[in-house]
């Protein structure tokens, strides 16, 4: 089965009001080219589930978001995401604020087709008190109460990987695949952008196959977009673009705001975007971060 498609074809599959999971973590391996295609579309009222970075900030700034399910939204080296803050501080979005691990459990519950997973995570804190949708239940096995973390069922997930074949075998060669495997499994449809399209034979080498974290049946579409994670990182290919993120953060305090950022960088296509940020070679030459 050939699952290759374009970013525009992916976004055409998405509908207003959908719940969309976005893979990666903060400024790392975000499917930013797919996010940019949403920015260029008229999609709206989305619920976004994400270990959030500029993906969440940009979608909020563009008015695409009704609700964010999050544990954090951060650029890591710049702790606070400016446009997410604006959205929160102006009361523009609904939120479900949960613990990082609760999000993992919610994705697992959705992936496994069960309504919830019991956990003690969240007890005694405001992630329970501020979320009427998250119930605390008695256990049939002990006298304690437990958080029933509900399944986070996703209409679609958007992910970015290093390499994939057209059948949807996806490889993450960077040191961490984060929760991308669970985003893939939790979603009805999973669309994956990749830095490089490879032949299936590439995975015949066990060292390569070992870095495939979900089966191709969990991949709906494959979109080859070299550099598609920019300005987030795609280790080991490129790091995150610190000057670009600084310009993005600064734009929130400038007169033009996010529109000014988009006017400068977004372009009508990914090719235009990459031209505006210095080209693919420049993206691919960004050094990996040191932690």
């Amino acid at each position, binding site marked *: 089965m050939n699952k290759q498609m374009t970013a525009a074809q992916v976004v055409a599959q998405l509908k207003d009001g959908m719940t969309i999971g976005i893979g990666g973590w903060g400024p790392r391996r975000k499917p930013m080219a797919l996010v940019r295609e949403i920015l260029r579309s008229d999609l709206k009222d989305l619920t976004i589930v994400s270990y959030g970075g500029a993906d969440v900030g940009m979608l909020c700034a563009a008015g695409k978001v009704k609700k964010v399910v999050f544990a*954090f939204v951060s650029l890591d080296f710049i702790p606070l995401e400016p446009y997410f803050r604006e959205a929160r501080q102006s009361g523009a979005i609904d939120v479900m604020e*949960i613990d*990082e691990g609760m999000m993992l459990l919610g994705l697992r519950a959705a992936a496994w087709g069960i309504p919830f997973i019991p956990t*003690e995570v969240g*007890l005694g804190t*405001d992630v329970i008190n501020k979320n009427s949708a998250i119930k605390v239940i008695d256990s049939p096995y002990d006298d304690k109460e437990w958080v029933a973390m509900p399944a986070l069922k996703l209409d679609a997930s958007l992910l970015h990987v290093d390499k994939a074949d057209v059948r949807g075998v996806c490889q993450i060669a960077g040191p961490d695949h984060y929760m991308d495997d669970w985003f893939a499994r939790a979603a009805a449809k999973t669309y994956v952008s990749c830095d490089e399209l490879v032949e299936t034979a590439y995975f015949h080498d066990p060292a390569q196959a070992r870095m495939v974290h979900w089966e191709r049946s969990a991949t709906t579409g494959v979109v080859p977009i070299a550099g598609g994670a920019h300005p987030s990182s795609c280790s080991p290919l490129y790091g995150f673009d610190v000057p670009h993120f600084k310009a993005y953060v600064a734009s929130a305090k400038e007169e033009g705001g996010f529109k000014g950022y988009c006017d400068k960088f977004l372009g009508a296509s990914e090719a235009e975007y990459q031209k505006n940020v210095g080209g693919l070679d420049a993206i691919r030459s960004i050094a990996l971060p*040191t*932690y």
Partner: protein
Amino acid sequence: MTAATDYTLAELCIVAASQAFANDGEVLATGIGVIPRLAASLAMKTSNTDLMMTDSEAWMLSEPNPIGNRPADFVPALESWMGFSRIFDNVWSGKRHAMLGPTQIDRFGQSNTSALGGTYEKPKTMMLGARGFPGNSISHPNSFFVPEHNSRVFMDGECDFVSSIGYNPARLPKGHKLDDVDIRLVITNLCVMDFGGPNHQIRLVSLHPGVTAEQVQQNTGYPVHIPAEVPVTAAPTVEQLAVIAALDPHNQRAQQIKDNPPGIRA
């Protein structure tokens, strides 16, 4: 072991904070931020060599990495993969001790890393979000580092948003005891505290050189339990300072406390 006479407040805090991990045994020590990370690394190099640590990315290390850019030929001492999803398997096992710096810490030891002021629906200031604080706080021991001890951090009343569980009877989950909550040390630029006072009241453990108990109380928005005898925070040893210098070759520790004051205040 020779007590140093010339050290910065940051170095004093690193050494004091490293004490939090000294008796932990074989657990994952997670220090977020330069001083907590150096504290955990110092403990792993000296007082508790059984500690485990990650490279803050995706690998477990058998030796802590120095902070900041490292030489091109540097080889980290990896011992296993430890991606973020696997971190939660460790967190929920309880075999971890994290040291973090929340924005608010109330009298119950509850902390806030998220919404400040206004209403929850429309906060005046939105910070990071709850992050892993809810899970950390109910699963394993935690310590706090506060670079600027004041009554905005240690605030009157309850946290605007409770990210981590503390010793608050009103929020105690059914079937749990307050003693299940395990907040260890609170290290600040003024002192070391814990929640070992009567009914888990915050308690002064040691005062940094030149700081008075009155100063600590004045900068804390709720009563601090002050024992009759409060020792001075132990000075770093020459050996500890050498380990810290090797772990922080770019002297990032000098940027962590305002004006990088000396450990012994004038």
